[in-house]
Structures are given as structure tokens and as C-alpha cells.
């Protein structure tokens, strides 16, 4: 039997302006939906929030880091994906907050901290009652050190120490000095806006920005995500293949 073969064409999307949001169709859909006029406490972010779209950043890399990105893409095209993009590692911060794969659970603990988690093992803790440690004492980690404070109805989360990995939302490289500021504001009962600014003096020519919108999905239950059957195998050259079923 001959297999039917169908040609397909991939499409790339170019990010342009600052604070670029979701695709036009998604935005139009959101605009057409009836707004939820239920009253709410703007300081109450507790609940399960699902990405309504995917934020598009206006990355601008310097020459050194643009070369790193090019190599990553060339390797990907050659069947050698970024090794550190392990399918069983939690998504790092920017990917966690902007990639629409599974909802986020916001769980405040009194007025001391906010724990944001995702099914894939990402757990991000924001502390309200202390500042960042001195720069030399910030331990590099996947989610860094995050502190938050309220400016009116906007929760400002400042994160440093993001040296646990060197890619943002999949491939974009960054340095350990990357600094992320998120400004979260509940704009309606069921809408949460996150205006994200990413700075990196060693990798970017200017800050990158994006807006991510989440919708409250109170009935959503996060499922576990433990890699009990990881069949993607990398050889010593970074070439990827599928392990046999047993």
C-alpha cells in the first residue's frame, strides 16, 4: 500500500511593535465576548487562570546572542533540537507565564507570598515581605528570586537570578542577568492582564515587552504531569529519535 503524501507549508509570524498581544482572530473573539461585569477585589488574584492567547515579544538580540539563536534554529532544522529544551523539565519563567499549554494556579499564602504553579512542575514563588538579596547572594535558578508589591491595583513582580537555564520561551537565548518585571492587573472578574518587560544588558539591545491575557477558569483542575514514559532520546551528537515502546 502506498502512503498518501501531502505537501504542507510552514508559516512564520514576525513580531513587530512593542506590547504586541495575541493574534488578531483571538483578539476579535475576545472583544466579541460579553464582558463579565461581576464585581471583584482587584487584589484577589487567587484561582486558576488560563492563557487566552500567547504573548508575542519584540525580542532584539545583540550580535553575540543573535548568533546563538541562529545556531539553535539551524540545529533544530537539522534534527538536533536544543538539548536543554527537555520535555520533562518544568517550563522556565517566561514560557510558564506566556505559553498557552495548561493553566496557571495562583495560590496566595496570607499576605506573605503568592505561589503560581502549572501542571508541568513549574512552581514560582513571589515574596511580599522582603527585598531581593544582595546581587552577589542571589542564587541562579530556574525561576529566580521574585519579590512583589502592589501599586494601586497592579501587582508588580520583579524577578532576578534567572540563571537556571539560558532560553526564554523555547529558543531565545538570555544571560544570567536577565531581569523580568511583570505587572499584573485584574481588569475584570474573569480577566487578568500581565504586562511583561524583559531586560538583559548582556544579550538584548533594548528591553522586550509583551502583554499576556488570562481568563479565569475556576472549574479547571490541574492534572499531574510526571514523565513516566519519556521516549525521546538524544544521542551524543544531539540527534533525537524515538525509543522503542518496550
Amino acid at each position, binding site marked *: 500500500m502506498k502512503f498518501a503524501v501531502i505537501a504542507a507549508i510552514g508559516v512564520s509570524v*514576525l513580531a513587530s511593535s512593542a506590547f504586541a498581544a495575541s493574534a488578531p482572530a483571538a483578539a476579535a473573539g475576545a472583544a466579541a465576548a460579553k464582558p463579565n461585569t461581576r464585581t471583584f477585589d482587584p487584589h484577589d488574584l487567587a484561582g486558576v487562570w488560563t492563557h487566552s492567547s500567547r504573548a508575542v515579544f519584540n525580542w532584539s538580540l545583540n550580535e553575540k546572542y543573535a548568533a546563538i539563536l541562529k545556531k539553535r534554529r539551524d540545529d533544530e532544522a537539522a534534527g538536533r533540537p536544543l538539548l536543554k529544551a527537555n520535555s520533562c523539565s518544568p517550563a522556565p519563567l517566561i514560557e510558564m507565564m506566556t505559553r498557552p*499549554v495548561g493553566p496557571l494556579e495562583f495560590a496566595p499564602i496570607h499576605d506573605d507570598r503568592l505561589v503560581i504553579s502549572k501542571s508541568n512542575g513549574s512552581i514560582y514563588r513571589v515574596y511580599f515581605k522582603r527585598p531581593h538579596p544582595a546581587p552577589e547572594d542571589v542564587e541562579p535558578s530556574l525561576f529566580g528570586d521574585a519579590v512583589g508589591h502592589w501599586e494601586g491595583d497592579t501587582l508588580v513582580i520583579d524577578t532576578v537570578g534567572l540563571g537556571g537555564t539560558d532560553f526564554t520561551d523555547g529558543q531565545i537565548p538570555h544571560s544570567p542577568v536577565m531581569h523580568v518585571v511583570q505587572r499584573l492587573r485584574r481588569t475584570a472578574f474573569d480577566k487578568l492582564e500581565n504586562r511583561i518587560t524583559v531586560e538583559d544588558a548582556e544579550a538584548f539591545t533594548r528591553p522586550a515587552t509583551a502583554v499576556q491575557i488570562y481568563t479565569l477558569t475556576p472549574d479547571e483542575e490541574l492534572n499531574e504531569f510526571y514523565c*513516566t514514559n519519556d521516549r525521546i532520546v538524544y544521542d551524543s551528537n544531539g540527534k533525537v529519535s524515538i525509543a522503542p515502546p518496550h
Partner: protein
Amino acid sequence: MKRLVPLSAIAAVLAMGGAAAAHHSGAMFDDKKTLVFENATVKEFQWSNPHAWLEVSVPTATGPQDWSLEMVGLGGMRRAGWKFNSVKPGDKIKVTVNPTRDGSHGGRADLVTLADGKVLRGQGPVRPNGAPAE
């Protein structure tokens, strides 16, 4: 050699939902090629993370071939309407596949037509803007 595109400041281009990511790299699959398995027999349905897998036997002129077909993680599977018991060994299904680049009997399952005619997506639900969820 004259460089056509300066590297000093580059705005990165991201394919919608297609860039390699922490939990779903599709680099091994050929997105420009689609195979259609009209009468595949399910050998095993692995309901697991980071990916669900369909093990199928595909009839060919030279005899049956065993194929390993990757699907998305269970979150995406559930949102696309799959359940852990949506298929069982022995079921006859139709499936469209992006095969591996290296020619091995593996691929990424896209549309799966179940024995009862129901069609489910192996790569998660389609988002309102047309891009796949995962």
C-alpha cells in the same frame, strides 16, 4: 563576502506555537510531509506524559509495518477530547502522520479517525486563532 542581513540588532521570528519549547520539540518530524494510514491497527495506546503514544501496525505491500506515533501530553489530549480508553488494541483507525526525518517508522500523529468515525486531534485542540494548542 557581503553580509546581506546585519546581525547587530535582529528581531527574532517565532513560528506560531512551533518553536522548540521546554516540553515539546518537533525537530525530528518533517512538517512538510504527511502520510495517511488508512487502515492501521492499534497495537497499544500509551496514555502517558510527556507524550501519549499510539503504536500501530500499518499494512503495506511488503507486509505490516509497526509505527510509533507521538501525540501531545495528557493535558492537551484531554482538551482535544481524548480519554485513556479512546482506543484499544485491535481497533482499526485512520491517522495522518508527519513522519520522522530519518526515515524510521515514527511520526507525529495529527488527525485520528477512530473506529466509530469520531475524529480527534493528536496534537491537541485547535485554538480560536487557528494555531494548535501545543
